[in-house]
């Protein structure tokens, strides 16, 4: 039941918000998002750390095909549910000092997006998953294309076509898998756990692997499917970018864990190495390009591309630490990237630029921004005691166990990450103030309030990650055991 609330409540709230006129929309949207957050936290606290799916629902949907409305939260979903609940109120709060035209539609789309994301992370029926996976795309497309920068129309269009193209392949794979399930009461089933029991031939596993992989790789994105990403991140309005980078790209990583590993273990055996190599290329390539960037938003976009490559590599390492690392890093990256984009947004609001060479000397007048920026940055470069460290350590450990050399290459992410992040900090915050940054005002109260929960998360996850690791552990262990046995039984 709780899961239904998490999905339906934002839809209802968004529809009501559409009716509100004027500036009160912001407050209403914030209250609406906070209620969802409280609920998500309650679910997280009540979640019993074992391998079962909890808070579920299950109703007939398309009965003649055996497709059901069914969902629930297990150890793999739970952190993402928390993340989705956490990020949206912060994004809403981050817009308090800015004004967007047609605010009611703006915030409503954001809540619709949240509903779809909750749906993706909790669906237990493959077609329900697909339904939400695509449905999430519509609000974000309009958010990006209606309120974005100058080039928004072609850029977001490319993004849309790219992701739909990938998803359609996933649809083919899902329909194929559906027809491989045994008949029950005259129809097949689409429950994800039924897909886990399929015994597919190695050839079928290979192409299903690719159909899934292309869909998820575009979403994340993994090299070479990333070309839509930097432009889209730059052209979208910052709140939409936060949603894209903070939550939406996790749909891809989540898909890898939920579908690819357990459904086509032989496909992973055959092609997992290719996938890891692509991911690691993405890590190194993304970092190197990030070093060369002059635009803050673009730099963060490439850093995100690089980080997500590491998550993909961790998942394909098929180790328990790699998988745990991917899950914890999804939460950590969500927190960090939202913080980083908000820093860029705060600077843009005061200087009207993201160009590093037009900034400088901001620290002189802004103690609050400096401290918060630095903390988010340290989280991103994985300093010990911050959230990034835990995730990256586990991920690198996983990849290193899989293959030492690949692990070594992936490790560059830490060095390069420090290089481009510190360079960005130095160029924007230190040095002599430029004409744009003299009289730079420090963060307002509402802006500071956005950072407080983010900073709390950075340290909480960094100092005591056990809170989060222990809820995912049984599910990951179960999944690993499961993958091990199916792969053996298929041979």
């Amino acid at each position: 039941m709780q899961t239904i609330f998490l999905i339906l409540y934002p839809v209802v709230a968004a529809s009501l918000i559409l009716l509100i006129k004027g500036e009160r929309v912001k407050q209403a949207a914030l209250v609406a998002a906070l209620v969802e957050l409280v609920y998500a936290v309650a679910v997280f606290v009540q979640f019993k750390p074992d391998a079962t799916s909890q808070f579920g629902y299950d109703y007939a949907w398309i009965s003649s095909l055996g497709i059901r409305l069914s969902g629930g939260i297990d150890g793999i979903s739970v952190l993402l549910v928390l993340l989705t609940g956490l990020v949206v109120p912060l994004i809403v709060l981050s817009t308090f000092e800015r004004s967007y035209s047609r605010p009611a539609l703006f915030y409503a789309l954001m809540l619709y997006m949240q509903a779809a994301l909750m749906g993706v992370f909790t669906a237990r029926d493959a077609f329900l998953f697909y339904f939400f996976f695509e449905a999430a795309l519509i609000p974000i497309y309009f958010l990006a294309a209606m309120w974005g920068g100058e080039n928004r129309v072609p850029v977001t269009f490319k993004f849309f076509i790219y992701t739909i193209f990938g998803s359609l392949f996933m649809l083919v794979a899902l329909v194929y898998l559906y027809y491989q399930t045994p008949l029950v009461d005259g129809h097949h089933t689409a429950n994800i756990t039924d897909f886990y029991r399929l015994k597919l031939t190695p050839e079928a596993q290979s192409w299903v692997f690719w159909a899934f992989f292309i869909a998820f790789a575009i979403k994340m994105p993994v090299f070479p499917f990333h070309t839509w990403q930097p432009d889209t991140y730059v052209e979208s309005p910052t709140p939409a970018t936060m949603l894209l980078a903070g939550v939406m790209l996790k749909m891809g990583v989540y898909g890898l864990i939920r579908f690819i590993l357990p459904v086509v273990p032989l496909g992973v055996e055959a092609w997992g190495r290719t996938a890891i190599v692509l991911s690691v290329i993405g890590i190194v390539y993304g970092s190197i390009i990030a070093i060369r960037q002059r635009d803050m938003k673009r730099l963060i976009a490439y850093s995100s591309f690089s980080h997500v490559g590491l998550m993909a590599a961790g998942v394909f390492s098929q180790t328990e630490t790699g998988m745990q690392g991917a899950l914890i890093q999804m939460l950590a990256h969500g927190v960090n990237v939202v913080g980083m984009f908000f820093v860029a947004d705060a600077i843009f609001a005061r200087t009207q630029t993201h160009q590093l060479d037009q900034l400088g000397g901001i620290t002189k007048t802004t103690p609050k921004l400096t401290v918060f920026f630095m903390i988010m940055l340290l989280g991103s470069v994985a300093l010990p005691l911050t959230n990034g460290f835990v995730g990256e350590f586990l991920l690198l450990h996983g990849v290193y166990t899989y293959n030492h050399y690949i692990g070594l290459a992936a490790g560059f992410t830490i060095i390069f990450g420090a290089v481009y992040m510190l360079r960005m900090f130095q160029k924007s915050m230190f040095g002599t103030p430029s004409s744009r940054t003299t009289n730079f005002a420090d963060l307002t109260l509402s802006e500071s309030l956005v950072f407080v929960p983010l900073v709390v998360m950075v340290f909480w996850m960094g100092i005591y990650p056990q809170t989060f690791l222990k809820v995912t552990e049984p599910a990951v262990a179960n999944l690993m055991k499961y993958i091990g046995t199916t792969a053996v039984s298929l041979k």
Partner: protein
Amino acid sequence: MLPIVLLSVLGIALLFLGFQKSRTLLLPAALLSLLLALAANFYDWNKAYLYFNGMLRTDNLTMVFTAIMLGSAFLVVALSSRFAEDEEAQPAEYYAIMLFSLVGGIMMAGFENLIMLFVGVEILSVAMYVLTGSDKRNLRSNEAALKYFLMGCFATGILLFGMALIYGSTGSFTLAGIAGYAANPQAGLSLLMYVGLLMLLIGLLFKVSAAPFHFWTPDVYDGAPTIFTAFMSTVVKTAGFAALFKLLSVSFSQVYGFWWAILAGITALTLIAGNITAVYQNSFKRMMAYSSISHAGYLLIGLAALGTQTKQAIVFYSLAYSVATISAFAVLLLVAQQRSTQTLSGEGVVAESFDSFNGLARQNPLLGFAMAVSMLSLAGIPLTAGFWGKFYMFSTAAERGQIWLLVVAVLMSAVGIYYYFRVIIAMYFRDGAVEPIQVSPVYRYVLVIATVVTLGLGVMPGLLQNLF
């Protein structure tokens, strides 16, 4: 059967109503006739009857197809209020012809005998030729009508030739008789039957504008008055696919091995031709013509993979497609009426290009939303009926293991998104004329109904399923 009688009688009554000077009664009368027919259609629900010595059959499937056609016609006719103001228009005749054409469409959905199929096809087609050319002052319309008529006659000839060959080889015109012959392959099936089947297929595929028999479509759709284009692209297509489905599933399912590859090839060709050429259109109306070709392709997937799901898939797809198409044409009608500067002599601009939609969503949120939902549905994006339509079609192909066809369909779906989204981009992200468009209440109702159906079936596709 009841709707056929009602439509014929009421159609003639409408003609007489045309003698009156005042035209105000015509539209309500036409709508009432359609509603009566729609209500009468369900009178025999869950019962199956044969009429005219087994020439025509009414069962739940026929009734569902009939209901889709009548419902589409109702929505389209509701949009025709402009006829009352147009001095040159002959609304009584138009409405009567539309009602008569529906009789043909229902025959195509319920035929049990090839002769009945032929009569149905002709009733529908001749009516369409006339309606296409009904804008007598417009050269485009005249040319389109002539083209449609000539090509259509050709197709009819082939259809009839095919029937003759089938009769010659199987000794029967009835679906059951042909099926009985085709079910005994031990004796060796006559080559003539295969040739006849191919010709039948060509004739019908022409009517639903499948490639490579689609060349008439863009010109005819473009030239015909928009309201009749909307009628054509929904009713004719539904009738055509009802007929194809019946023909293939009842009579020729035993020789599936012979025709499936041909049909699958035509399907792939239709998908590719329709979608790729639609990308290059600058006129929204022509884009809709190519889009209708591409949707014929998606519908054909279900036939090429004839199986347990096909019936449901075709019904669902026809409904989803018809509703979305009517909604799109309704918005086009409004935009073209109020933004065109064309005079009677043909000078000026007809507002049927994508640019005419610029900024529409800002001035008319309802029009923008309805159009956006319709485009999303035609593109097959979740939350809309179009998604499930495609989903069912893809399922049938997956059930038969025709993965290659699926891949073609998927690639072409991605292409489709390109041109459907051009409208959304124009409406939402571009600036255009400042004056809002006047929307009469009838248009508003039609758009709301179409949008609600599209979204309703998009979230609860199961609603339609347990019907038949």
